[in-house]
């Protein structure tokens, strides 16, 4: 007929374009003009996508964030000199080997036996700001020593000498050579160096630190009259145990005269607990995701099932199953993509809020998660639409159109 002649004249490209235009027109009409239903569907999908992207972000970021929390257990690596003591430049070399973003704190200690009221007390000196980072669990009653002449004393020392913050004490130090030479001789030789201190804080750790006194490096130099050299260096590094092992090997190898080892109590236990925590979050994520996706699917199924009649009509008009599936899936995909994008943004905001509240730090944005979320929502939506569409296309159009 007329029409067929027309068709032959039209070139195929033009037909394709016109068909595509109508296809797009139908889908946009369905999406924009059935507003209430589409909002329901979009809401369902974006909730699903939000939970997906939020939980996955948390799951991936938890080890890092929690790892930082675990640093409250204090130093997880100890560097000791092979011979007598290590020099500041060795400590610097060690520090240089640890990546800046992983290093929580590095504190090098020097231990000397000093005398307080003629009784020996172990005195330690270190960069006290770093100590606060490597030993965050220390319970300090008072202020950390901030200026020369200030000292922090262990709980047991305080009890023994009956000292309180604000009181003064004097430490004396016998230079090594003279102590040895003066062994068994009269006391006066010993009274060489002395420094007056103000007690600023009392330290409670539940460990042997309670028997020590802590002073600034400069005070120790004054007291001993010797330049600083360290006995031990504590590092708090936020990494897994494998990374730490590699790092300690690197330090022992590259810095001459020192050897590094891990504080197994801290590293091994952290691995155990952190892996539990991660598998907890993983499982929770899987369960929540599975349930939410089913939830999204049922909502989509309900939304599409409503349109059985329309599907029947299209079939009666001569639409093939393929073209019906293509149209409804087209709608589903557009919805899935929009919902996925919206959900990915919301999910990131949620993860960010969690991170701010729980860990007081922001979360790392994972750009690859956006396409993954969108893809997942498109797949779930598509699968969810497929079931009712299939069943609707299977049904006789006559029956669908008859039933009111």
């Amino acid at each position, binding site marked *: 007929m007329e029409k067929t002649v027309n068709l032959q004249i039209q070139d195929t490209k033009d037909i394709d374009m016109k068909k595509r235009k109508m296809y797009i027109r139908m889908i946009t009409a369905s999406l924009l003009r059935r507003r209430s239903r589409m909002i329901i569907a979009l809401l369902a999908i974006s909730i699903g996508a*939000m939970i997906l992207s939020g939980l996955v972000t948390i799951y991936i970021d938890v080890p890092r964030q929690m790892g930082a929390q675990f640093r409250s257990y204090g130093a997880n690596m100890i560097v000791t000199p092979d011979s007598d003591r290590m020099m500041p430049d060795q400590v610097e070399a060690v520090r240089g080997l640890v990546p800046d973003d992983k290093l929580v704190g590095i504190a090098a200690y020097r231990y000397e036996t000093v005398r307080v009221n003629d009784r020996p007390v172990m005195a330690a000196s270190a960069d006290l700001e770093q100590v606060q980072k490597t030993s965050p669990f220390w319970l300090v009653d008072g202020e950390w020593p901030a200026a020369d002449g200030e000292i922090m004393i262990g709980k047991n020392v305080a009890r*023994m000498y009956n000292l309180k913050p604000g009181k003064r004490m004097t430490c004396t130090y016998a230079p090594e050579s003279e102590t040895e030479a003066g062994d068994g001789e009269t006391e006066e030789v010993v009274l060489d160096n002395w420094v007056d201190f103000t007690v600023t804080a009392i330290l409670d750790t*539940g*460990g042997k630190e309670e028997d020590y006194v802590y002073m600034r490096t400069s005070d120790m130099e004054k007291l001993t009259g010797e330049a600083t050299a360290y006995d031990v260096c504590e590092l708090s590094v936020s990494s897994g145990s494998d990374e730490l092992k590699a790092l300690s090997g690197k330090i022992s190898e590259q810095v001459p005269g020192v050897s590094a080892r891990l504080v197994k109590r801290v590293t091994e236990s952290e691995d155990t607990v952190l892996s539990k925590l991660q598998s*907890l979050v993983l499982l929770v994520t899987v369960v929540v995701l599975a*349930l939410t996706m089913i939830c999204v699917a049922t909502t989509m199924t309900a939304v599409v099932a409503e349109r059985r009649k329309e599907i029947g009509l299209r079939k009666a008009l001569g639409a093939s199953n393929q073209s019906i599936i293509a149209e409804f899936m087209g709608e589903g995909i557009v919805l899935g993509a929009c919902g996925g994008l919206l959900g990915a943004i919301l999910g990131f905001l949620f993860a960010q809020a969690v991170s701010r509240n729980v860990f007081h730090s922001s979360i790392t944005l994972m750009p690859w998660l956006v396409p993954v979320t969108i893809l997942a929502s498109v797949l779930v939506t598509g699968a969810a639409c497929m079931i009712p569409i299939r069943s609707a296309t299977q049904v006789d159009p006559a029956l669908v159109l008859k039933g009111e």
Partner: protein
Amino acid sequence: MFVRMIAKAFLRQWKKMLMIAFTIALGSSLATAMLSVMMDVEDKMNQELKAYGANITVVPKSTSVISDLYDVGDENISGNYLKEDELGKIKTIFWAFNIVDYTPFISTQVSLDSGNTATLTGTWFNHHMDLPTGEALDAGIASLRSWWTVDGEWLDEQSDGSSECAMVGSSLAKKEGLSAGDMIHVTGSKEEKNLKVVGVFDSGGEEDDLIYVTVDTAQALGGLEGKIDSIEVSALTTPDNELAQKAARDPSSLSVSQYETWYCTAYVSSICYQIEEVVTDSVASAVRQVADSEGQILNKTELLMILITILSMVGAALGICNLVTASVMERSQEIGLMKAIGAHNPAITGLVLTEVLCTALIGGVIGFYAGIGFAQIIGHSVFSASIQIRPMVVPVVAVLVGLVTLIGSIPAIRMLLNLRPTEVLHGR
């Protein structure tokens, strides 16, 4: 007639109702599982954090002042010890149930055949105790030192001849050229003995220079029968708050009611206090490194779980809302007809709500049990222990499902009420 209509609605639309019930069941199982896990996560993580070892140490009153200060000379000089026969009392305190593990230590100096001296420490490895409550507990360093790597075997206290066995630290073993299976001859201040090295351990700390034997062996070698140097206790504790910090400084500064609260909460300081009450002349103090960090990690984990729970609940709630809205809207034609034959708005609302709530009840109950199942799956696969279901979960889930279903019906019902029967029946 009302009942008949509802029954009919269920029979006729059972497929749709089934779908709503299914979604509500999903939501309610999600809420149940997450709430249960959330409420139990503190306990479970607390157990896991025991990997860090003891969080309380108990020492005799006077040594707590002098210990470690003189690392030279004879350690026996102080002469202050705890009594071994009082060890059992630790499991009798108010918070006995929270004490998951503890072990005594008794150290003595011994000389080896090579001429070197070494510190030999007696302790429990897997000491079996039958408690007065009828429970049994295997306590000792086998679990308190979970981070040790042992070359050979752990010393088994239950086996015969355990008093002839020893575990040697890796540094000492290296120095003395010892490995698992070797014999070592030690001379204590009182006796001498041949010990079989069953295992060489690497602790990554100062313990690598020690020899560990059973308590009896160490006491016999050093002539210290019935005496104990220190006790390490691993207890499940509640993270510290202000009250606990105040109490830790001085329990007597608390008012009576504060004291009650403090004493009856498993703060590390109140457990310490209770231990001091039962072990004569002892000072129990919290190992800050373990106790504080534990508190922090527990708090964070719980907060994290709470937020995840909130997210999943919001998800479940919106999911249910959505489906209820979608499926009620679908029935506009039926409702239009009802209006046309003279149904008043309250009657329609009542009918729709009763239908939806009945469905919600069925779905909610099924979902609750499914949720318990999910919680157990999580519990068993992560913590290898079942999650305790708190009675609290039942009302919370019930209220949640009820509210969510009602709220979900609101937009749909509003839409139905605004329907003009003519529009609907004329098939728009």
